[in-house]
């Protein structure tokens, strides 16, 4: 279910014919192709059909797939996810949209106590091939209730998978793999990235879940970046390269299951590591990554694992505060320099 249909080069760029697409269009194309591939895939959510989604994630899908497969629902996220759970338990492959990740608080029971645990606590007799799509992240002045990155909650839940596309290419490939996967998978799109562009193959392809991607190779510091922070880390890499510092940038792509082997291998070469995510640092995934790295490759570390995340506050509204809140290339570069100062 997780095999990719395109050959990829080592840096993950597809070796097949591609063209530039926005992140949101790449997502949309992957979804449409997955719907063509499998008649059991349908989409439900608020304003996903007639309006095409408030972020245009579902543009044109109603035209092609009709109201049987594109379902507008009331504002009832618990019932919406529950509808997905029940339909998945009965053999469909629902794609359920939560619009803003922050709304997860009204339907977490269905995600965590039902979708994630059902196979296990029922004794294995079914699968729940449910995909939940949602937009996360700060940067649009959407404030405390519309800007969160809550991957740490979900990655802590046995039975769930969680992917965080970092660019157009992964937005398409991870979405396809999420839909093909037989487990509940949460696809965390990033709001700020929606309009960013990247090379995307035309045909359908999956990106293996649970496989990290080395987005840039380097020997001085390993930077593990989640979601939108991958692009920031790559920008920091350019800046640092000008100073003669080569950082390796790892994009886990999937945060549950998490491909720590790729991280360990990198750290064994660089001996220094920085983890960066948009979520609040305390209790964020950086903690898990740091804990595993110090455990497994302890003897290779020349400096403690450095974490960069948001400070311990809700996401502020005012752009001047929001900018200071979200990690960026400058802070990443700064972090790398600090790591290298340490002997």
């Amino acid at each position, binding site marked *: 279910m997780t095999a990719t249909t395109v050959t990829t080069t080592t840096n993950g760029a597809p070796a097949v014919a591609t063209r530039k697409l926005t992140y949101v269009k790449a997502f949309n194309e992957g979804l449409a192709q997955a719907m063509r591939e499998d008649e059991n895939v349908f989409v439900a959510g608020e304003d996903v059909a007639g309006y095409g989604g408030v972020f245009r994630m579902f543009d044109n899908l109603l035209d092609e797939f009709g109201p049987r497969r594109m379902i507008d629902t009331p504002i009832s996220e618990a019932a919406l996810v529950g509808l997905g759970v*029940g339909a998945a*338990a009965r053999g469909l492959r629902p794609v359920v949209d939560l619009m803003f990740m922050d709304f997860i608080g009204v339907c977490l029971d269905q995600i965590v106590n039902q979708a994630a645990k059902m196979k296990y606590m*029922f004794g294995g007799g079914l699968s729940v091939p449910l995909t939940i799509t949602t937009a996360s992240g700060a940067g649009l002045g959407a404030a405390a209730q519309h800007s969160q990155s809550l991957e740490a909650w979900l990655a802590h839940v046995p039975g769930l998978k969680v992917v965080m596309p970092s660019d157009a290419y992964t937005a398409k490939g991870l979405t396809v793999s999420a839909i093909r996967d037989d487990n509940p998978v949460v696809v965390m799109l990033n709001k700020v990235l929606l309009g960013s562009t990247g090379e995307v193959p035309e045909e359908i392809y999956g990106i293996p879940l649970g496989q990290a991607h080395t987005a840039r190779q380097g020997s001085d510091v390993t930077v593990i970046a989640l979601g939108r922070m991958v692009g920031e880390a790559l920008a920091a890499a350019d800046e640092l390269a000008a100073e003669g510092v080569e950082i390796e940038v790892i994009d886990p792509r999937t945060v549950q299951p998490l491909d720590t082997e790729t991280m360990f291998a990198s750290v064994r070469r660089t001996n220094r590591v920085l983890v960066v995510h948009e979520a609040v640092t305390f209790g964020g995934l950086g903690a898990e990554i740091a804990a595993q790295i110090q455990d497994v490759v302890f003897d290779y570390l020349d400096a403690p694992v450095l974490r960069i995340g948001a400070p311990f506050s809700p996401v502020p509204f005012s752009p001047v505060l929001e900018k200071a809140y979200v990690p960026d290339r400058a802070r990443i570069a700064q972090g790398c320099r600090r790591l290298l100062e340490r002997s």
Partner: protein
Amino acid sequence: MAQRASTASKKSPQVTPQVTPQVTPQVNPPVSEQISPRVIKDLHERMVRIRLFETEAGKLMEAGKLPGFLHLYVGQEAVAAGVMTALRDDDQITSTHRGHGHAVAKGVGFREMYAELYGRVTGACLGRGGSMHINDLTRGMLGANGIVGAGVPIAVGAAFAARYKGEDNVAVTFFGDGATNIGAWHEGANMAAILGLPVVFVCENNGYAEFTPQSAHMLLTDVADRAAAYGMPSVIVDGMDAVAVHRAAVEAVERARRGEGPMMIEAKTYRFFDHQGVKGLRHPYRSAEEVAEWRTRDPIDLIEARAVADGTATRTELDDVWQRTRDEIAEAIAYAEASPLPDPADLLLNVYSG
């Protein structure tokens, strides 16, 4: 403009616990001639199976043999039997924390149910789930559920799948009076209504949510009044009368099967044991008289009296059902006790598919 009176009774706010009876038994509706002897016998047998499953489970728990919680269904058998006799095997149900009755009536086997209560690897959940997660996908039993109201949207999803696939099976979701106060119930009801899905909403109104009487958790006398908020028709039945439940269920199920959308049935019923377990009550939240009064309308007594009066069955035939069931249960318990425990090495089995 004139104020629109609520259709509901206007009770004064109630915050103190009440011990007076909240639900009074109803008069049995007139016996109809049309009901077939086969259905009566079927109802009776399913009720006996539930009753004995539950009372034996209660004894096992008292004897300290069963871990975990046990929410007994005794007293409410007419609801599960009445609804399940209106369903096909491929119809789907979602259940509650009080799920044994639904499982037994839907045809889940005693062996895997007892084995599950014992936490054995031969159990319905391989010993992973226990009482509150018993399920059998081959029988359309989509699981008991430990979270109040959570089964409701799941049934809506099952009904969605049926229609999507062009199948004509329906989904039934069981829930208590107390469960209708939770958000997921409301959302599920509206979702089923607006999507016009084949879901039957069965409220087992036993008058209490744990130890809280209905009068302290809602101002309505009839939970069925809530259906109107979703444009859903509803019907109230005597939940101690299996035939009445069966008739209402046939109507609602066939309506749903015809594509006419969801409907709600409220069955007025009672649980004879405590909310959980068999130990009796810490606080007298129900009066002895109330319990005794309801026990005079034991749903199995009622159907047996009727069957004998109608000539549908003889006392001996009925006794045979009890005896056969007892034997089957004894065998199932022995099976469960002889079954192996799960192997801790398999702790991670079934966390993920594939």
